């Protein structure tokens, strides 16, 4: 009974020590450090002042409570330390005297000191100045050389009350009497500690409490299960279904530990019956909590939050500003502040920032009051976040005939889900999967893939599982998962895209061709059939056929920009630049903000020698997605500037491009160095070549990145296979490079290869290649593989 009651939802300070320890997650080191700091402060002349920062519900009171309990039990501190644990909200502090009285009150309550209490009461008969002077003395006398630990929450509110004058007095008091140590909390940084002129600027050692990750939440629930001796919950959290449900909670709660604790009671609910009543009660209970959080905001901030509640998704700053009649800079400032306070989170897309509620549960709880009598709407809202579509469908199928109310809830929840672009729990799981996979944490990614299989079980989910297993070296299991993915032939047209993605992920291009060519069930429309074929063929390096298929896909669905873009890629690879340009222009017309298309256009124009237009296109890419401004793009842009005679600008731009590499010459960082082959394609004027090459050598050498330049020169050998480059030009190219790199010893080997390539192009005599050492020949052979075919003398 005690254990059932003891997980108090809003007042961790009421929880017994053992409970606080049992459910501690993520912050073991921090709490150890805080307690250690208090010990040091009590036993030595060093005094520590700590400030914990984090939004409401993040666990600040839990930390403070734990510090109190642990420190109280340390025997070595008996007689050395006194503790003044102030109330979580000290509304009555409007001066330094008030703060002193709060501290004294905390002491006489803690230590049941009637004498101290009487002395404090007597102070109220004095003038303020006299009372303050006496309170200072009383406190020091009472401490009698012990150290005082002040535990103070919402320090920002206390400082608001103190104002500058009170802060100065407090600081002077601490400086003049080094017997204090402080552990304090605040929702965010505040002027009292962040403004240079403030007395407490730089005073505190600040730690930020981070929100719980999925793993932290799992640990928390496991701890709760253990503490409650709830075997069902403990077992449930280890299952894919349980973890998937937990992700739904994470999505709702935004990493707020308090909400996880609340929802721990619902995780194992089997029937809707068991869920509905306690759920509605919980939402009711949560409402004042969220309302209190709203009350801490300014009216303008509340307006923004209410707007985000209505919108239900990420919204741009401009839209928020416009819809609420707030100037853009004010809206931006308020949103930054709301983010610091933990109410919203942001996403960057291009140059725009988008904001959404950090805790969707806040929206639901606040809407409780708006939905008077419309319980079903609220419940439906919750259910679509809690269950996947499959689960809802399954539950609906299992319902008895007389379960009309439940049928209504579930049907409406399903309808609501159909209107969502993506199921929330799938979205949450997919996002976690991608994060783990990108971080090469394949074990965790596999767990999430299993959860997705549990809640959806599509071909793509199996494909993801297979991918993880391959990375983990579990090939047999990977094969099984792959088979499962392939065999899950889609039954609906909507599932085809999923199936296609699965096969792509598994590099099963022949299977895609097989499916697209032969499959009649479901009847693929023209677009899908040719699109899938085109993509598979391009992956198999059958570029001509790929271009043909994609061209038919584009004709079948002329309004689809992506197929035009993929077609452009094939045409570019085939060297059909004019057609490529036409195609990419069409893609841009259909989707003007698609940055890869602009990049493709820029590269094509460069190949065609239309440098001014190429420059405009490069700039557009950077404008659309600043993050896309990688070395490849920036170096090309720089080279175009130079080619346009804007040498100083070009040099500066190239320096900037090289700076982005931070000294790395790894291929994954550098991408392709197209500037070298582009130069050869663009002009056969030796003087222009020399000028560019000289600048490149200088800049790349200065940055220690000559190795990248070498790769570029090797790429130019492939271009020598093009008929457009005459033999004379090829010979000149080799000669200019030889002469330019005479002083660069590290280029000697490369020049040997280039010379051999040029000679081989002219003679097609294998003896040219045989003169090279075998390892150098191996480097050259793939680059010159088309020379025989293109230049064979009949």
């Amino acid at each position, binding site marked *: 009974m005690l254990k059932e009651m003891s997980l108090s939802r809003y007042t961790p300070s009421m929880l017994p020590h053992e409970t606080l320890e049992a459910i501690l997650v993520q912050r073991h080191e921090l709490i150890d450090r805080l307690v250690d700091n208090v010990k040091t402060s009590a036993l030595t002349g060093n*005094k520590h002042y700590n400030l914990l920062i984090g939004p409401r519900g993040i666990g600040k009171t839990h930390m403070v409570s734990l510090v109190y309990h642990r420190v109280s039990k340390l025997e070595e501190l008996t007689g050395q330390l006194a503790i003044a644990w102030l109330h979580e909200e000290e509304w009555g502090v409007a001066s330094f005297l008030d703060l002193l009285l709060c501290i004294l009150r905390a002491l006489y309550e803690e230590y049941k000191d009637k004498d101290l209490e009487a002395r404090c009461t007597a102070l109220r008969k004095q003038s303020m100045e006299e009372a303050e002077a006496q309170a200072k003395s009383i406190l020091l006398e009472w401490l009698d050389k012990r150290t005082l630990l002040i535990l103070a929450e919402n320090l920002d509110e206390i400082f608001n009350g103190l104002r500058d*004058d009170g802060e100065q007095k407090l600081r*002077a008091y601490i400086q003049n009497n080094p017997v204090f140590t402080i552990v304090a909390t605040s929702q965010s940084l505040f002027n009292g500690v962040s403004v*240079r002129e403030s007395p407490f600027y730089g005073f505190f050692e600040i730690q930020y409490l981070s929100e719980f990750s999925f793993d932290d939440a799992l640990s928390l629930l496991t701890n709760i299960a253990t503490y409650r001796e709830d075997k069902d919950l403990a077992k449930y959290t280890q299952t894919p279904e349980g973890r998937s449900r937990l992700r739904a909670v994470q999505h709702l709660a935004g990493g707020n530990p308090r909400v996880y604790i609340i929802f721990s009671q619902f995780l194992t609910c089997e029937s809707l019956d068991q869920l509905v009543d306690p759920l509605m009660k919980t939402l009711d209970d949560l409402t004042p909590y969220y309302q209190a959080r709203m009350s801490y905001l300014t009216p303008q901030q509340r307006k923004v939050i209410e707007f985000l509640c209505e919108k239900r998704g990420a919204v741009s700053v401009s839209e928020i500003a416009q819809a609420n009649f707030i100037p853009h800079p004010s809206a931006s400032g308020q949103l930054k502040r709301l983010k610091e306070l933990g109410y919203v989170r942001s996403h960057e897309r291009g140059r725009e920032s988008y904001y959404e509620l950090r805790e969707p549960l806040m929206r639901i709880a606040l809407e409780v009051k708006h939905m008077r009598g419309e319980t079903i709407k609220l419940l439906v809202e919750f259910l679509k976040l809690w269950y996947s579509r499959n689960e809802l469908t399954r539950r609906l199928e299992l319902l008895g005939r007389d379960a009309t109310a439940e049928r209504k809830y579930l049907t409406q929840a399903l309808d609501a889900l159909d209107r969502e672009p993506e199921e929330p729990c799938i979205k949450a799981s997919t996002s976690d999967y991608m994060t783990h996979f990108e971080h090469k944490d394949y074990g965790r990614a596999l767990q999430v893939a299993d959860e997705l299989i549990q809640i959806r079980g599509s071909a793509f989910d199996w494909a993801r599982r297979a991918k993880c297993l391959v990375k983990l070296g579990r090939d047999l299991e990977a094969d099984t998962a792959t088979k499962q993915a392939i065999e899950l032939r889609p039954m609906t047209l909507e599932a085809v895209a999923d199936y296609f993605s699965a096969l792509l992920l598994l590099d099963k291009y022949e299977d895609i061709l097989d499916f697209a060519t032969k499959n009649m069930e479901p009847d693929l429309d023209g677009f899908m059939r040719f699109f899938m074929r085109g993509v598979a063929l391009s992956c198999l390096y059958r570029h001509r056929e790929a271009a043909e298929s994609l061209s038919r896909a584009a004709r079948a669905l002329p309004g689809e920009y992506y197929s035009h873009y993929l077609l452009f890629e094939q045409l570019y690879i085939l060297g059909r630049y004019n057609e490529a340009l036409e195609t990419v222009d069409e893609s841009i017309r259909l989707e003007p903000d698609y940055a890869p298309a602009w990049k493709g256009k820029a590269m094509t124009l460069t190949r065609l020698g239309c440098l001014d237009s190429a420059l405009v296109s490069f700039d557009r890419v950077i404008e659309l997605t600043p993050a896309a401004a990688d070395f490849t793009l920036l170096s090309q842009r720089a080279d175009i500037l130079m080619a346009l005679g804007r040498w100083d600008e070009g040099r500066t731009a190239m320096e900037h491009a090289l700076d982005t590499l931070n000294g790395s010459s790894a291929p994954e960082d550098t991408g392709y160095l197209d500037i070298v082959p582009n130069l050869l394609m663009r002009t056969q004027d030796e003087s222009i070549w020399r000028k560019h090459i000289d600048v490149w050598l200088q800049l790349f050498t200065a940055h220690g990145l000559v190795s990248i330049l070498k790769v570029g020169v090797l790429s130019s050998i492939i271009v020598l296979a093009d008929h457009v480059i005459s033999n004379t030009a090829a010979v000149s190219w080799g000669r200019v490079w030889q002469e330019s790199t005479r002083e660069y010893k590290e280029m000697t080997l490369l020049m040997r290869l280039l010379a051999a390539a040029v000679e081989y192009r002219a003679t097609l005599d294998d003896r040219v290649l045989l003169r090279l050492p075998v390892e150098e020949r191996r480097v050259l052979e793939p680059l010159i593989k088309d020379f025989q075919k293109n230049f064979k003398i009949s």
Partner: protein
Amino acid sequence: MKSNPGGEIAPEHVIGRDGFIENLWQVLEHQSVVLVSERRMGKSSVMKKMRAECTGRHVVFYSDVEDIPTPLEFVEHVFGTVRSHLGTMKRATSQTEKILGKLAGGEIAGLKFPPAAAPQWRELLQSAIGDLMMHCEHSVVFFWDELPLMLQKIKHNTDENTAMNLLDALRSLRQTHPKLRMVFTGSIGLHHVITSLREAGHTNDSTNDMFTVELDPLRDQDAQLLAAQLINGEELVCGDPMGTARAVANAVDRIPFYIHHVIALIKSRGHVIDSGLAEETVSQAMINAQDPWHLCHYRERMEEYYGQERVPVVLSLLDELAASNEPMHLQLLVSRLGASLKPERSALERDILSGNTEPVRRTLDALQRDHYIARRQDDGAYEFRFPLIKRWWRIHRSLPC
């Protein structure tokens, strides 16, 4: 020893200041001191160490006086200090209590002076110090921390006259009592407060009898020792403790506060440290939007310190020095200013652009006093005082490396 950035450091844990303290005692044998330094050097820690470890030759009092708003309350504070030192036996003979008794019409029991005492604060101060000196065989040293802040506060609450009068009174006391010494220090320079008082028409220099002593960053070996002790105290795993300690110390120009900060930050992120991580931590602190090392104040305080008109000149000078890899002489700096100053912006900039170098020299002097820059010993060329600040300035102002 654990890292404790911003916290109170026990006197026995203050590292590398013994030599400085010994010198300071020697100066105090002869005159009072204005202790200056850049922020975070540990002035308060040094004073508290001196108080804790003073030999029987001195009676030392330390106070942070930033919260004192009027001269009368300052005198109360001094009186409280004197009274607690003298003890009950001698208190009965104190002149101050006699004066107070007359003003209040009876014996003073508490710590607060009666309002009627306000106009007599000077007399009371003289008397309180007089009482103390009469009963002290040894020399007496008052360490008054944040005195400039107190003067600013007094100026704000009363007027410049009153603040100046207090400084004059303290000077008079130093002249009256040969064994009395004072040490003024604070987080803002006393010269700023005195300048503002001068601008209000007061020409006295009430501190010209005091010796200015500057507290520098730690010496190399002391900074390394501090870093090493903190690495050890925090139980950080380290393959090359001395090398890493050196890297930490050098990365932050041997400034104790930042050494503590770097170790604390590394500790919060894990248990391993090496030279590379130390350097990376410093770099991250430079660009951290939350400015954990409060470096933005080097820019933010400029309007207050130098006035709105002079700020563009200050910014341009610091930009030039930050962008340069070598120290720069006055003439070179002046010639470079031409590109960034605008004659239409202010009379000062017009004056400089017309060829007058004096305002530039004065600005450079002010920057030197506020520890932004220093002059190379052999040729007087100017450069940033702390490479750490120079580096931050370059990043903050987006200057080329």
